[in-house]
């Protein structure tokens, strides 16, 4: 097998076995980037020189036996909203177009300690606001399965890079589905862990109470191994939780006998694509055949998740993004009259339309006289949604759902109707509101040849159960590569 086509864990094993060097691994990624990046555009920054140098250092530590972990020497791409010391971190925004952080995000540091080699920073929707990676200031990312379609978002760059085999795995972030939905659109595996599992220190905040970093990879095994590497209790993040266990790979068993899995009836709504629905029901059948007990149930409150999410996330974003003002770092307008004019022009010129829309929405729902009617009501809704899930998890080990109502839409088809775009988040958003873990795995392709993703949702801290189910399902089929990669492979 070619290096680029290996999973992270496969490659890591070969590196430990001295069959492949860390430098060769990086070269394989860079070679694939040379081949496909122009078409896919997964990256904002590719650090060719730095990454080779780092690979050499890591290789020395592998050779002398200091680095022995499963990810040592394996290249990784990091979403461009995670701070990397001295390396551009733009959030795909003009306002941070020149920003080089003075420290590295905790999750990335954890990877570095494990010997990971960062090859670059991946494209995203500006400040993670969007579902298509079309709102990036640095241009759209295209879906490797069909370059006329979006890769999903906001972690579209990370998911496209993995699907296009530009890197074995990547880090994404998920505030309302930003790992799971693009993973689904790109036919890769992505997990959003329980809120508090991965430190947010160094993740440039969008919706602080919802944001979580998570892995994007070719299979479930990789995701479990990567999550073991990045998860930690971080005293620098007050919302980080000291978990009882950080073992995830222990759950990779091909055995779901007796597990109880629920499918919310209320997820089968009008907007759900027929083919997607069929794929999910077929996958459920597969699990049933493997011995799981699958049944439909009523989750309730489904229709309230989207409004609650857009109120809470936008409110937090309006405040989180206030610091980008042209004073201390990032973009400052060329000419201005006074302080307020400088603020206004820098922010008007520095932010894109979707970001401005959410800042305005967030400022509105927090403004005096509206706070109770919108923000407080949204918080109460969030609590009720959490309760609805808690009730479900009294009965079920996990919940099955689509990751998105459709497969990847065509480029340009979503942004002119934001409300429709927001409705596309219906299956992912409530998981963030409730702080739950959710994984998206590929379960086939539709008639257009685009991947369909299935979501497995677990109760808080129950990552092991969803890894178990996802892994068991994964054993029933082969990982599928987009044509773009297969063609590349034939050369």
């Amino acid at each position, binding site marked *: 097998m070619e290096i680029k086509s290996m999973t992270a864990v496969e490659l890591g094993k070969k590196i430990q076995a001295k069959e492949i060097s860390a430098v060769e691994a990086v070269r394989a990624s860079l070679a694939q980037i040379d081949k496909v990046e122009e078409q896919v555009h997964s990256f904002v920054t590719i650090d060719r020189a730095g990454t080779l140098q780092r690979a050499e250092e890591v290789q020395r530590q592998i050779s002398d036996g200091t680095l022995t972990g499963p990810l040592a020497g394996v290249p990784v791409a990091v979403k461009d909203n995670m701070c990397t010391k001295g390396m551009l971190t733009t959030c795909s925004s003009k306002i941070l177009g020149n920003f080089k952080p003075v420290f590295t995000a905790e999750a990335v540091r954890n990877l570095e300690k494990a010997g990971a080699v960062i090859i670059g920073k991946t494209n995203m929707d500006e400040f993670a606001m969007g579902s298509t990676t079309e709102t990036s200031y640095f241009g759209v990312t295209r879906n490797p399965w069909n370059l006329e379609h979006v890769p999903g978002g906001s972690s579209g760059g990370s998911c496209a890079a993995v699907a296009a085999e530009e890197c074995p795995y990547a880090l994404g972030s998920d505030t309302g589905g930003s790992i799971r939905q693009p993973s689904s659109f790109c036919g890769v595996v992505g997990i959003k862990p329980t809120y508090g599992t991965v430190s*947010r220190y160094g993740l440039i905040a969008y919706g602080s109470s919802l944001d979580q970093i998570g892995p994007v990879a070719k299979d479930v095994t990789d995701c479990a191994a990567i999550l073991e590497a990045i998860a930690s209790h971080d*005293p620098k993040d*007050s*919302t980080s939780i000291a978990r009882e266990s950080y073992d995830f790979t222990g759950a990779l068993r091909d055995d779901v006998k007796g597990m109880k899995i629920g499918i919310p009836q209320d997820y089968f709504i009008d907007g759900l694509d027929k083919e997607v629905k069929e794929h999910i029901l077929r996958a459920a059948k597969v699990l049933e055949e493997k011995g799981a007990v699958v049944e439909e149930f009523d989750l309730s409150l489904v229709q309230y998740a989207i409004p609650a999410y857009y109120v809470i996330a936008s409110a*937090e974003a*309006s405040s989180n993004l206030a610091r980008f*003002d042209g004073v201390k770092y990032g973009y400052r307008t060329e000419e201005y009259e006074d302080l307020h004019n400088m603020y206004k022009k820098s922010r008007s010129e520095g932010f894109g339309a979707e970001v401005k829309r959410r800042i305005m929405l967030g400022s509105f729902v*927090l*403004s005096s006289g509206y*706070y109770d009617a919108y923000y407080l009501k949204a918080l109460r809704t969030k609590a009720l949604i959490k309760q609805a899930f808690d009730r479900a998890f009294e009965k079920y080990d996990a919940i099955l759902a689509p990751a998105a109502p459709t497969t990847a839409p065509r480029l340009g088809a979503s942004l002119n109707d934001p409300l429709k775009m927001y409705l596309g988040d219906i299956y992912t958003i409530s998981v963030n509101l409730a702080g739950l873990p959710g994984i998206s795995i590929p379960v086939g392709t539709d008639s257009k040849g685009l991947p369909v993703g299935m979501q497995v949702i677990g109760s808080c801290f129950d990552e092991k159960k969803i890894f178990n189910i996802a892994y068991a399902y994964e054993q029933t089929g082969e990982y599928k590569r987009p044509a773009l990669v297969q063609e590349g492979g034939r050369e």
Partner: protein
Amino acid sequence: MAKQYETVIGLEVHVELATKTKIFCSCSTEFGSAPNTHTCPVCTGMPGSLPVLNKQVVEYAAAIGLATNCQITQVCKFDRKNYFYPDNPQNYQISQLYLPIARNGYVEIEVGDMKKNVRIHEMHMEEDAGKLVHDEWDDTSLIDYNRSGVPLVEIVSEPDMRSADEVIAYLEKLRTIIQYLGASDCKLQEGSMRVDVNLSVREAGTEKFGTRTETKNLNSFKAITRAIEHERERQIELLEEGKTVTQDTRRWDDNKETSYAMRSKEDAQDYRYFPEPDLVPIVISDEWIAEIKARQPEFRSGKIERYKKEFDIPQYDAEIITNSRHMADIFEKASSICGKPKKVSNWLMVETMRLLKEHGMEPEEITFSPENLAKLVMLSESGTINSSVAKEVFEKIFENNVDPDKYVEENGLKTVNDEGELQKVLEKVIAENPQAVVDYKGGKEKALGALVGQTMKAMKGKANPGMVNQKLREMLK
């Protein structure tokens, strides 16, 4: 008959807490360092940075709340206050609005013979902002983030005060409590205590409050008093002219003794407060409250009563000494060493207060040790040095905390008790001042003083004045 007006005042008092590190990061809170040397990604609002609460801030805030009879909010939270200004690197301040740490307290004040309670509406924790430095030559502004993230509590009183005297009594009471707790040095000049005055007037006997204004930039008790008088008169004048008071925020200019409106209610900002998602709720358990209570020091009123009993000093002395916890500590220690509390008290009340005033210092800034003061009392009491030498030595103690034993020894300041030597000097003084001798013998008691003075001078102040006096009387019989 002219209308009578009543002044109604409520205060918002910001107090900088004396923690070693900032409220949400581990940067030092030290005052007066080079700009931007006590900064990190958190207190400069770098993207991706997150706040972590300093536990000591909660302890101090809860201690102040308990000492001012507040209810402690056992599950309290931080909120974000959003506004754009460069001194605030995130463009929001982490503060408390919905669940402040303490509520519904009071402190008792005394003005003349009148005692009353000033109620505390609430007290909350928050972070301080950085400091803008305007370079007028260059037409630019620079920012120093050293102060950004220094912990503050804001104590909001009810509108319970009716005069500048009551305001000062309240502030002094609050300051003493906080200083006793060691929670802040509460210096108005340096800004570790900042006072905003909310004031309105109403016709005497009416219930309804008038429209209030808020006055800021008050850097001393004198400025507060002047600003209150000025604002009261300004509002009464407006009302007398049939105009209305507008609800504005005013800045006091102490040099010009006037205030001007900074902004009115119409352009008041909407701070869009919401719960700070980066911090978890703070749970203050009964056990924690009990621990904080157990650590509370003896406060001023307790000390005054004990001093009167234990040290047998008058109320007046006890009040002055306990006005500063530092001075009270010196008093207690020195008294226990030398066993002469009244003497120690005299040194503190007279000479110490005089020198503090002369140097423009606060009692908290006293640097001498109780040991050295005790030694001085003992030297003086045993007659080893006389009172004028003692005063001279005390000045040295006050300035450099010298060891009085050594200082007296090294400078040869011991009182000469050698009667032979004194006899010689006295004979000489009597011989050289015949007129005074005649006057004294003729009944002018004053003349004796002159002779004592001459003798002390001749002996370079080291004679025992009592002994000189007695001897002279004997010799001139």
